[in-house]
């Protein structure tokens, strides 16, 4: 029995791999993201200069052999700062979406499976959160909690949560009444066994796609908050913050805006491309 089960799982995974391999842009994005993850882990080892190493004699210099991305208003090496900013942006993106995904999934399972008052409460709460555009909601939360990176993570988690909640609930509603779940229930299985063994795995592909797509979005929101002065505090090398500082020097030092902007752009694009690829590969309705 378990051997058969494994075989099924294996063939499903194979199927996914076969489909995913055809998504050229998603694979390309995945490679870039893996490089970014490596950079995030080893940024302090590979950065040619310290992130707070200033040199007042060479401020706002354009890109050169010594400073690949040029220098900022204190003569700090922009390349090193952007490298180290990778860790901050990826961490914030991953943490916020993970928190949002876990809480949203749990709430979605409860709402979908048990229904009743719990469902009404949870889904109306989600409606309230959905009523605000993401960034506005995040700003409101920051206004209450105060600025700082931890609060940015909380704010982004809160606004990504309802999407997961709605997604999981609809998936639960669809699977709950399926024959195999009914059969399992008539055999006397507990709620938790049904939920975690059968219903959750069915929702998993959707969650993974949404998860990947949300990371890009949340990196963007976190950077926006820092850009607006509500996230990272100077002198943290956060991309949004570097971009915001660069705005002042837009006319005479374009590189101050260009490189952090590119870093955000590439990262967000890669997460979205990967998400797209995963969706196509995981969608059973799309045949090859």
């Amino acid at each position: 029995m378990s051997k058969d089960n494994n075989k099924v799982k294996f063939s499903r995974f194979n199927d996914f791999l076969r489909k995913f391999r055809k998504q050229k842009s998603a694979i390309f994005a995945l490679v870039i993201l893996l490089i970014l993850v490596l950079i995030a882990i080893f940024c302090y080892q590979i950065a040619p200069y310290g992130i707070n190493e200033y040199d007042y004699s060479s401020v706002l210099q354009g890109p050169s052999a010594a400073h690949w991305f040029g220098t900022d208003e204190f003569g700090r090496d922009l390349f090193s700062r952007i490298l180290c900013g990778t860790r901050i942006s990826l961490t914030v993106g991953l943490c916020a979406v993970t928190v949002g995904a876990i809480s949203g999934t749990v709430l979605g399972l409860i709402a979908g499976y048990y229904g009743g008052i719990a469902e009404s409460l949870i889904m109306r709460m989600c409606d309230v959160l959905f009523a605000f555009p993401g960034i506005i909601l995040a700003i409101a939360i920051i206004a209450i909690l105060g600025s700082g990176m931890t609060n940015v993570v909380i704010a982004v988690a809160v606004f990504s949560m309802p999407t997961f909640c709605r997604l999981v609930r609809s998936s639960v509603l669809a699977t709950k009444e399926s024959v195999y779940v009914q059969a399992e229930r008539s055999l006397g299985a507990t709620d938790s066994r049904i939920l975690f063994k059968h219903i959750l795995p069915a929702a998993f592909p959707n969650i993974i796609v949404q998860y990947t797509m949300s990371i890009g979005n949340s990196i963007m929101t976190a950077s926006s908050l820092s850009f607006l002065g509500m996230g990272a505090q100077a002198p943290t090398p956060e991309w949004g913050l570097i971009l915001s500082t660069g705005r002042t020097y837009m006319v005479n030092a374009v590189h101050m805006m260009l490189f952090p902007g590119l870093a955000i752009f590439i990262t967000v694009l890669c997460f979205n491309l990967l998400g797209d690829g995963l969706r196509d590969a995981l969608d059973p309705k799309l045949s090859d």
Partner: protein
Amino acid sequence: MKKSRKLLAMVFSGALLLTSCGTSDSGGGSSAGTSSQDTDVVAAVSLDFTTMDPVDTSDTLSGGIQRLIMDGMFGFDDDMNNIPMLATGFTANDDATEYVLTLREGISFTDGTPWDAAAAKANLDKLADTSRGLKRTSLLGPIIDTVEITGDYEVTVKLTQPFGAFIATLAHPACVMMSPKVLEKGDAECAAAPVGTGQYKFVEWESGDHLKVELNKDWWGYEAGLADKDSGFKSVNFKVVTESATRVSMIQSGDAQFIWPIPTESYETLDADSNVKVYSDEGIVVYYLCMNTQKAPFDDIRVRQAMNYAIDKDAYITIIRNGLGTKATSLIGPAVAGYKKNEPIEYNVDKAKELLKEAGYEDGFEITQYYSSNSANEKTAQFMQQQLAEVGIKVNLVGQESAITNALIQDCTKPGSEAEVDIYHTGWSPSTGDADWALRPLLATEMCPPANYNISYFANEDYDALIHGALETADQDERNKLYAEAQDIIWEELPIVPLANSFNTWATSTNLENVKIYKDGAINIRNAKFAGQ
């Protein structure tokens, strides 16, 4: 095919747009050259105006605009020397408690009300009335006892205490004279539609957008030789443009003929533009770093000395002020009456470390620096953090909304030993042009927050005695001597790190001449005119 047609249309309309910009630019110049008297001057300023009631104004920009519309009894020439305006002179008794002011005759407010002793009394009474809750009644409210009309053009002011800075204070922008007719209508009217005797008449003000003033051809100052009548323009429209890049592009495109201030990072760009003239002039704003002297570690003089050695003032001027400044030699600028030069403290990291070691902070310490979030403050805060890190002092930066920071710093009601502030970067310009309005509000014991701006919580009896002593005499030589001693105490006790005297920066289109900025940062267009007039 379709695509290329679209592209062609885009290029064509782009070209059209460019040529239309070009014509409006040169058109503005030529109309000024041919001296049509209807021309508007457009000035772009970085801040919004707060109120038009001089007695309730605490910002230099609004005060400067009010000074165009209303004259004071005393005022300033271009170099900020005190000159008589609506008064022609004064006599004081020996202990500086009674002043007799003689008023200029034959002048009317622009609404037709005559300028006389009754008008002067109405204005002075308002300045003395602390019960109205207006910000600048703190200047003279506690000082003025009674104002008596002792002639058609003479008032006698009795003071509650000797106050040698009385005439200098009357030149403060808060002490300009408004028509008694407007005063009668109440404070709301004063704040919205001021009427004075000034060179300009108030036209309209839309908050957050623009404020317009019109030349007053009948201004008494023309006959008194204060300015030349033919300026070549009729009105000045002050537009509020907070985004500095927009201000820069407005002067470059000819949409504005005057901008203030120049964002430091665009100074060179504008300097290289042949259609724009840039100006910089030493002002009287002094930038400095406060240290909370009531709290460890700054209660130890050695730590305060170490801070002074640890911060490189030359680098501060280059990096933070973009080279537009000079090293501070006092808490007041050289142009302020009562200034005494002291030697700037050298930059010496070793000496700083040695002093910290002596004070028992060999391994440094950790402090917090609060600042109101904007790009300039953030840059300054990071600079302090970098400098102090060199001697082992770790500075945590907390940038917040200015309202939150102000509540924490300026409006703090706790005693100094419990206040949150460790160090705070700020600047001050004494708009009276007199040492009193810097040395007293910034460091006298009774001026600790929330009363005023003594953020160092400096409490020194000798210093207080000198500052108050200087107020008790009208003899300027005696006052200078006392202020010099007070400034020496600042240099010995170092409750602050004096950083730089600022430069005011502004830019005009090449055809607009004589636009100036007073040393306190207020706009001065008394002699402004188009070239060729």
